[in-house]
């Protein structure tokens, strides 16, 4: 016994989404079938509207509902400091901290030699092209604190050095609320190197 062609097609389409396996796809499909028509239509129109109305900002490559994203359109932001992130979701994470008032640049990935992802697959050329016209004085390399993120930060840092721009990396160390005894050697070593004076 199999599902009707229309239901099977819905399950197959849902199953193509990241992190959705066949069982999850079936569960979501049956939730849709059991939902009110108005709820399903709202979901469908949200998907098509999001797809139709969004594109990448032509300056920073964050998600935008027009030519420019809200951050690039905001004239009150500091144009001299750029925060380089891997993914548009990282922009939201940094914005939530409320401690950064500059602009962003989204790379859309990180260098991963083992997966064959080199610098040519990222928006690095576009980053370098922003340095002079926008009079950038500091680039904060805010890539993930993992091997790929470190490799990307080192690579960009090497390209920025001859341009005379200050390249900085986010501090890494112990998470707030954790116990020292559970810290791994790499994290504890970095925390020790980046210690701050109390005086």
């Amino acid at each position, binding site marked *: 016994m199999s599902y009707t062609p229309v239901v099977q097609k819905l399950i197959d389409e849902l199953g193509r989404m990241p*992190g959705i396996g066949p069982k999850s796809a079936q569960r979501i499909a049956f939730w849709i079938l059991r939902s009110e028509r108005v709820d399903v239509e709202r979901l469908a129109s949200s998907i098509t509207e999001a797809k139709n109305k969004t594109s990448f900002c032509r300056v920073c490559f964050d998600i935008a509902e027009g030519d420019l994203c809200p951050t690039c359109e905001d004239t009150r932001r500091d144009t001299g400091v750029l925060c380089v992130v891997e993914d548009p979701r990282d922009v939201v994470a940094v914005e939530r901290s409320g401690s950064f008032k500059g602009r962003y640049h989204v790379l859309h990935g990180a*260098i991963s*030699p*083992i*997966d*064959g*992802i*080199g*610098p*040519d697959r990222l928006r690095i050329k576009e980053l370098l092209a922003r340095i002079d016209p926008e009079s950038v004085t500091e680039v904060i390399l805010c890539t993930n*604190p*993992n*091997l790929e993120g*470190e*490799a990307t930060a*080192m*690579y960009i840092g*090497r390209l920025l050095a001859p341009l005379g721009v200050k390249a900085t990396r986010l501090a890494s160390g112990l*998470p*707030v*609320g*954790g116990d020292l005894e*559970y*810290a*791994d*050697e*790499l*994290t504890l*070593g970095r925390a020790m190197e980046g210690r701050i004076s109390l005086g």
Partner: protein
Amino acid sequence: MSLYRTRGIVLRTTRLGEADRIVNLVTEDRGKVRAVVKGVRRTASRWGGRMEPLMHVSLMAWNGRELDTVTQAEVVEVFKCVREDLNRMAKAAVMAEVVDRLCHDQSDDPAPYRMLRGALASLDSADSPAIVGAFLWKLLAQEGAAPVLEICAGCGGEGPLRYFDPAAGGATCGSCRGGRPLSPGAADAIAGVLGGRLNSVLRECDSRTASEMERLAAAAMEHHLERRLWSLGVLER
């Protein structure tokens, strides 16, 4: 399901679900292991940097049907200089990729683990230009695919051997003339790596010969694996 302990080097990681990762490790006594590490992507995760690629760890894991699950891990070696130098990191990535492709699940052969551990330790202490080429040749020899360098791999003649043909399995003479040009220096370096002079090749090989040895080793490895090595020259792209 059973619990086991082993030592291994993390070769690569793949994202899984919301905050987990699948890690591929080459281990001392279980060949290649693919295991889930739960919650490792959370910033305040108890795993910290322990399960990052190129970490040498001692771990405890549950045996699963398809994937194992890591329950505890302690760092054995960090290879700090490899992590903090982009060129060394790129070299280590090639070595990790090759071991990931070559190594089999449930194999009790400790050689790939020992060789990778030794190569990473050597790369951590000194950035020899010959390290990747030497590692690939040693690994090919371990796989039973050592190149023929004394006689022509095509016709069996004595040479002079001025070419290297991965399909023929070694150096070739002017009349067979397959593959790429082979300089006497590179032929000597390969013979040295495979003939017990590894340390002197790593110490003394100049960068031009080392780069030729690496190109030939990569061609032979790609022929052996029947696929491209993604990590080769990735930073030059």
